[in-house]
C-alpha cells in the first residue's frame, strides 16, 4: 500500500458538523426569506389571483398596478395620495435628523475622549443612562415641554426629538472609536497649534470614515423605521412613511387590497434595505473593528 504524501492543498472533508451548519443556515434563510417572498409575489398579483390562495406561487399575470396604486393612490381615510406623501415626509425628517445627530454625536465623542472636560465621566455616565431608559418614560414630559415652547407637532420638533434620542448611542459609538485612535496623534496636533475645531475637522474627522458609515447605517434605519416619535411629535402634516403605512393597512373600506398593501410595505422598507445592501460590508467591518461594542 502506498501512503499519500501530504502536499499542496488539503482535501476538504464534509463532516457532520459542516452539514449541520449548512442545514441551520438554510433553514434560517428560508425562515426570513419566506415572508419576503410572499409579500413580493402578492404585490405582483391581481386581487382575483390572490383570492385563489396559492400565496407562494409565481403570479400567472404579473402586474405592477398595485405598486403604482400604493405609491400614488392608496387611501388613508379620505386622503388618497398613496405612500409617496409619507415617503417624502420621511425623507425630509431623515436628512436633517441624520446630519445633526451624527454631527452632535461625533463632536461630543471627540470632546469626551480627547479633551479633559471637567466632569466628562459624569456626563458620559448620564448619557449612557439615557440610552437605557425606555423612550416611553420621556414621551409625556417631552410633549408637555414642546407644547409649552410652542414647537409641538412640527417638523422641527420631530427632528429635535431624533437628535436628542440619537445622541447617547452616537456619542458612545464615536467615543469608543476615538478612544482607539492613538492619543499621540492628538498630542502632536496640539503641539502643532491645533485648536478644538481645527483638530477635529482637519485630523480627526478625516480618520472617521468607517465609524461615520456605521453611524449613518444605524441612524438611517433607526430614524426611517421610527413609528412612535413620528406619530407623537411630527404633527398631521409631517407624518412619516411608517405611520402612513399603518394607516393605509388598517383603514378598512370594503375588501382589503392585499397586493397594494404589500407593495406599500415593500416600498416603506426599501430605504433601510438599500442601505444594508450597499453598505453591509462596511457595517460588518465597523463591528469587527470594535466600533459598535459598548
Amino acid at each position: 500500500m502506498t501512503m499519500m504524501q501530504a502536499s499542496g492543498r488539503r482535501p476538504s472533508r464534509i463532516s457532520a458538523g459542516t452539514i449541520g451548519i449548512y442545514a441551520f443556515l438554510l433553514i434560517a434563510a428560508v425562515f426570513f426569506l419566506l415572508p419576503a417572498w410572499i409579500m413580493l409575489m402578492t404585490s405582483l398579483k391581481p386581487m382575483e389571483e390572490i383570492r385563489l390562495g396559492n400565496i407562494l406561487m409565481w403570479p400567472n399575470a404579473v402586474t405592477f398596478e398595485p405598486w403604482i396604486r400604493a405609491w400614488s393612490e392608496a387611501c388613508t381615510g379620505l386622503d388618497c395620495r398613496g405612500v409617496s406623501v409619507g415617503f417624502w415626509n420621511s425623507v425630509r425628517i431623515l436628512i436633517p435628523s441624520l446630519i445633526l445627530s451624527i454631527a452632535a454625536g461625533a463632536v461630543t465623542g471627540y470632546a469626551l475622549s480627547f479633551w479633559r472636560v471637567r466632569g466628562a465621566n459624569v456626563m458620559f455616565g448620564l448619557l449612557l443612562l439615557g440610552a437605557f431608559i425606555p423612550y416611553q418614560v420621556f414621551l409625556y414630559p417631552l410633549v408637555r415641554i414642546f407644547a409649552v415652547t410652542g414647537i409641538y407637532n412640527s417638523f422641527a420638533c420631530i427632528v429635535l426629538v431624533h437628535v436628542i434620542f440619537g445622541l447617547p448611542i452616537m456619542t458612545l459609538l464615536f467615543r469608543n472609536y476615538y478612544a482607539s485612535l492613538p492619543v499621540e496623534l492628538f498630542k502632536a496636533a496640539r503641539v502643532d497649534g491645533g485648536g478644538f475645531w481645527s483638530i477635529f475637522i482637519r485630523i480627526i474627522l478625516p480618520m472617521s470614515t468607517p465609524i461615520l458609515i456605521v453611524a449613518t447605517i444605524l441612524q438611517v434605519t433607526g430614524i426611517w423605521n421610527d413609528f412612535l416619535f413620528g406619530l407623537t411629535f411630527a404633527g398631521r402634516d409631517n407624518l412619516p412613511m411608517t405611520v402612513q403605512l399603518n394607516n393605509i393597512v388598517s383603514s378598512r373600506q370594503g375588501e382589503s387590497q392585499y397586493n397594494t398593501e404589500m407593495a406599500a410595505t415593500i416600498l416603506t422598507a426599501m430605504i433601510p434595505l438599500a442601505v444594508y445592501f450597499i453598505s453591509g460590508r462596511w457595517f460588518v467591518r465597523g463591528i469587527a473593528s470594535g466600533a459598535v461594542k459598548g
Partner: protein
Amino acid sequence: MSSVSIRDLTVAFGSTRVLNGLSLDVQAGEFIVLLGPSGCGKSTLLNAVAGLLDVADGQVWIGERNVTWHEPKDRGIAMVFQSYALYPRMNVRNNMAFGLRMAKTPKAEIEERVTRAAELLQISHLLDRRPDQLSGGQRQRVAIGRALVRDAHVFLFDEPLSNLDAQLRNELRVEIKKLHQKIDTTTMIYVTHDQIEALTLADRIVVMKDQKIQQMGTPDEIYLHPANLFVAGFVGSPQMNFFEGELTGGPGGAAFKSGELHLPLDGYNFNSAPVTGQRLTLGIRPEHISITENGPWQGFKTELVETHGADNLIWVGGHNHSLRLRQPGDCKPALGSPLTLAPDMSHISLFDTQTSMRI
C-alpha cells in the same frame, strides 16, 4: 536659544503622584537625555514640559518665560513621538506644514521651510506620499521634519527610535546627533531607555528611577563614576561586576575584603571618609579587569566565552563569585583554564551597601 528649567514639578493622575517636586535645569543648546526604566516618569516629565498635561505644583520655565500655564503651541517647543503620530490622511508635505498653517504662516514661507527641512532629512522625494506609504524609518524622519519646520527653541523626543530595527536605529541616532550639531542653538530633551542612545547622544544624561533623578552628568561621569548602585547597574552593557564585602584597615592602608578576595584601596578617591568594618559593594566594569600573570586575584576559572566580534565576553568563576570580563576578540582562554585577574584600580567604584550611595 532657550534654556529649560523645571522647578519643583509635581504631576498627579488623580491621587497618585507621578512626579513629586522634581527639579531639573537644562542649559540652552544642550542635548539632555532622560534615561530610566519603564514607568519611571520620563514621558510624564516630557509631556509636562510640552504642556500636554496639567501640573499639580511647581513651574516650567523655557528661556526667560514662565510657561507653566501656556498652551503647548505657545511654548516654543516641538515634539517627536515614539509612534511617529503622523496625520494619516495628509501627505508628508501637509504633515510638515500643518503647524505652520495653524500659525498662519505665509504660503511662500511654508513652502520654503518644508523644502529646507525635507532636504536636511533627505525626504524630498517623499513629500507627496501618505504616511502609510512610508517605511518606519522614513516615517520617523518625517516626524522629525515636522518638528524641524517649526523652528522651535526646544525639541522634545519621546523614545523616537524605539519602534525601529537595530540598524535603522543606529542610522537615525547618528543623524539626530548631526542634526543637533547643525542646529546647535536648539535645546534637546530626549527620552529613552536605551543606554547606548543615551551615552552616544547626550551632552548630559539624567538617570531616573521611581520618579526621581538618580544622577545627572556627562556620559563619562555616569559611566565611570556612577552615583549609586542603581546607576552603576543600569548603565553599561554587559553589566558591571559587583562584589559585596567590607572595608578593612591595616598597616598597608584601607582595603576591600570579600571572602578570600582582597583589594588594597590606596589611590581610590573616596567621596566620604570610609569607616573600618563598613559594608561595601565594589563595582568593576567588565573591561576594567585584565588577565595577567601577577594580578592580585588568583584562582579563577574560565566558565564560558561569548564571542561578540570585536571583543569577547568571558565569564569566570571562583571564590563564590561569578564575573564578566571584556577582552579583545583574540583572547579565548580554554574552558576551565585557571586565570589570574587584575582590576584597574583607577576605574573601580565603591558603594555603601546599606545606602547604595557611592563613597
